[in-house]
């Protein structure tokens, strides 16, 4: 385990007065509170900050920590400091307290901290107290593309197990037509809180997809067309969430025109469907064949079309 520097965790110097430690703690607790923070490692940081504060706020624990570093817990529990505690002592430049002078460190500890008050936590012993979740029910995010959310089906997701903190594969049945901010409940898969096996909720987020965009119940997509299709009109194949359909491109369609396909959008809570909007985007070839160029130049010469009235022809 990497050595945890409690002062560093709180960003205060070793000489910091109690007041500054408290201030630093409060600020970091707000910053990394897992319910508020958007930082990636907020949960761990919050735990570290609390573990550090739990020691540094208490003058006696702080003194032990200053002297023995990481080994302070072992010393406090009545064990001789491990050999490398000497290193910590040197690092801290501490002097004076010699654990060997005490035959019964446990009683010393009890005198310091008032008995086994801190013992026998959920994980036992002197482990940092896990952040009590207040409820065994937990929430995690699941990111789906609009296509996947529409189709639904089984999916394997890797999440941190709320009890062990380890990565675990969960098989999730995604209801077809699940919506952003809807929660998928995995009953009994949350944390263990006493007799209750908490539930795990997966908060659905829709991943940006180049193809489809959900706006309320309506689905938006883009329909690329050739300049002649845009000008002359025609029919085109359009991918929808539910397979391909043929759509009519009206003649004289400029980029930005939206074709509405009623009822081809996202399923609604009422059992109906939103609409699908296909926005026309005129694409041109990046390179022209000589004949194409000639035809376009002819078109330019004879056309009275002016898309920018400010621009005299």
């Amino acid at each position: 385990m990497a050595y945890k520097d409690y002062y560093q965790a709180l960003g205060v110097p070793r000489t910091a007065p109690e007041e500054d430690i408290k201030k630093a703690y409060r600020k970091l607790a707000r910053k990394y509170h897992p319910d508020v923070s958007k930082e990636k490692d907020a949960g761990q940081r919050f735990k570290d900050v609390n573990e550090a504060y739990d020691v540094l706020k208490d003058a006696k624990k702080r003194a032990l920590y200053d002297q023995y570093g990481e080994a302070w817990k072992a010393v406090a529990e009545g064990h001789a400091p491990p050999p490398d505690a000497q290193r910590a002592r040197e690092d801290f430049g501490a002097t004076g307290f010699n654990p060997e002078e005490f035959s019964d460190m446990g009683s010393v500890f009890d005198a310091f901290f008032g008995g086994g008050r801190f013992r026998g936590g959920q994980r036992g012993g002197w482990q940092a107290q896990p952040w009590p979740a207040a409820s065994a029910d937990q929430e995690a995010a699941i990111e789906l593309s609009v296509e996947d959310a529409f189709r639904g089906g089984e999916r394997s997701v890797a999440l941190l197990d709320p009890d062990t903190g380890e990565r675990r594969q969960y098989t999730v049945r995604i209801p077809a037509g699940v919506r952003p901010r809807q929660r998928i409940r995995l009953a009994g898969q949350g944390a263990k809180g006493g007799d209750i096996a908490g539930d795990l909720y997966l908060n659905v987020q829709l991943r940006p997809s180049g193809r489809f965009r959900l706006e309320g119940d309506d689905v938006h997509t883009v329909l690329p067309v050739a300049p002649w299709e845009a000008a002359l009109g025609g029919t085109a194949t359009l991918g929808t969430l539910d397979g391909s359909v043929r759509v009519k491109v009206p003649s004289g369609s400029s980029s930005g025109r939206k074709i509405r396909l009623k009822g081809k959008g996202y399923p609604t809570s009422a059992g109906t469907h939103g609409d699908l909007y296909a926005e026309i985007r005129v694409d041109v070839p990046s390179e022209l064949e000589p004949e194409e160029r000639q035809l376009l130049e002819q078109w330019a010469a004879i056309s009275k079309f002016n898309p920018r009235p400010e621009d005299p022809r």
Partner: protein
Amino acid sequence: MTRSTLSVFSLREVAVRCGVDVELVQQLVELGVIERAPGTEAAFACEVTLRVGKLVRLQRDLGVNLEGAAVIIELLDRIESLEHELRARDAG
């Protein structure tokens, strides 16, 4: 809403699951932090426990009072909703 995950808890169940008093849950209903499931007298969508848990943690960890925690939760809701909107826009 037709969702396969719909299930409800009683007031007491919510309290037990969140490790709080029934009175606190009642208070949260009065404050409008949680709402009863539509069409029920005293049942709550099971996921309200997430909200209650969040409120309890905010109170406990950050030293804010009930109303303060309620405001934070509502602001977090708004942020979440805006983030979803933003994400949808990014895709366009």
